[in-house]
């Protein structure tokens, strides 16, 4: 029997959305992962194997060939420039990468050197530099919303889906830098050697 097709998914909401979406298209034989803490889950009936890993690691796993396919947000893909192929935009994981500032501090653009807290230093630098702003990036890994409240940044650039977290932390959304949904990504060598299986999956997801 052929080696199962290995699919890397980001743990959490996106892996739940992915497996449900795959199930609706007949790609998987189940619509939910079990609540166990297993990180490698087989779908023997469909010849698939899922790896549940951190979202940033999905790109690296697929790039290096540890997984043939992955699901990853367009935001992470655009930030990290992984050497992977992107056949399909998937209709879940919708969010936007936005600039937000503390309520009432509308003069933040007038500062000579704007401090920007973000998990997305490349996209953020590019956005501000293209508009002629002089900024200092404060790279953080979580709870970005509290950065202006604690004084380490003037504004933030972070993912927003409903905007409730911004509101709860006294922040106003200024502008969206990037609109994102999930993407199916493919390892370039897997595309060459497992083209029939991957093609079939792409066709099923897009109903050509």
């Amino acid at each position, binding site marked *: 029997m052929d080696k199962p097709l290995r699919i890397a998914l980001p743990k959490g909401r996106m892996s739940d959305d992915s497996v449900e979406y795959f199930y609706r298209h007949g790609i998987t034989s189940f619509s939910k992962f079990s609540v166990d803490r297993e990180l490698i889950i087989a779908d023997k009936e469909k010849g698939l194997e899922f790896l549940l890993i951190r979202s940033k690691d999905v790109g690296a796993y697929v790039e290096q060939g540890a997984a043939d396919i992955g699901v990853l947000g367009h935001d992470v893909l655009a930030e990290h420039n992984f*050497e992977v192929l*992107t056949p399909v935009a998937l209709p879940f994981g919708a969010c936007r990468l936005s600039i937000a500032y503390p309520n009432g501090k509308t003069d933040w653009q007038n500062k000579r050197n704007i401090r920007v807290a973000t998990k997305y230093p490349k996209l953020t630098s590019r956005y501000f530099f293209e508009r002629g702003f002089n900024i200092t990036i404060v790279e953080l890994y979580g709870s970005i919303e509290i950065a202006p409240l604690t004084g380490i940044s003037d504004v933030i650039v972070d993912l927003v889906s409903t905007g409730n977290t911004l509101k709860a932390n006294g922040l106003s959304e200024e502008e969206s830098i990037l609109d994102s949904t999930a993407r199916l990504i493919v390892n370039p*060598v897997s595309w060459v*050697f497992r083209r029939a299986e991957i093609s079939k999956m792409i066709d099923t997801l897009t109903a050509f």
Partner: protein
Amino acid sequence: MKHSEIYRQRRAPYGFPFLDTEATKLLQDKTRESQSVLQSLGYERVMPPSLDYPDTFSDNERFDSFRTRDHLGDDLSLRSDVTVQVIKGYANLIERSESPVRRFFYTVPVFRDISRSYPALREVYQIGAEAIGLTAASAVGELLESARKIMQEIFQESPVFLTGDVNAYYEVEKFLGRDDLRDIVRNKNAPLLAQAFLSVGLDYGDAENLSRLLLFAPVTNEEYNSRWENLRPGLPLELARTLENIRSDLLSLLQNLPVAVRSISRIEPLLIRKTTYYTDFIFEGYIQGIKSPALRGGSYNHLVEEYSGQSMPASGFALDLSALSRI
């Protein structure tokens, strides 16, 4: 003494490894096997210089890291690509040559930055072949057949070849009025290409389907043909006509390949190379377990004229022998 200084004293620079006796023997054996395949097919060995004027190399391959100067203060660069050097050398021989058809090969290290996202300078050991004076259609079959034999011999495994025509890329670029599509095409980013088609007025379905067909063509030519026929009526006439011509050239190229090569070759409708001198068919060869294509090549029909004044087709390939250590 600092730790980094001790490291520098005792080690070769990162990316430029000292090959031990075992690695050297492996490389030497595989090089000899490759050379004997090419010699048996009438290829003659040449040895281009390690340094050359930076303009010799394709625009995207110049790196300050590999620059030096000659005694007159002119810039020189370690070679990042050998094809143009071979053509320069051939241009000097052309008047003396009895037959315009010449076949050359070389085995040399080249110097490159191999990563897109961070600096990764490397010395890459290459074997390459250039067939000068043969039309693209006949040269590609001959080159792919010799590459197949070499790859089978040195990797003990059959490669898969992807074949495209660089003009399909330029046609799409012209149609979209953009010159920044290389990364989108190299990463086969179908959603971004579809957005570009949408922005020039294609309807949503055609934009999506065309970008997927160009970047993720189905396995069989029958399926590819049937999807293309469904799509074609919805496309602007000129784009449809040009892509159709390129498609039939590619299908006919595939049809005329030697049988052993045809069975491992796939059409890649939108393929692009980093080097900019290709004018016609281009191809890549993959080996299972190696991250990037071990073989790259194609036809470059302007280079001989550029250096010798005589119009003459030419095609070639370069095979990365350093890939041996990455299996």
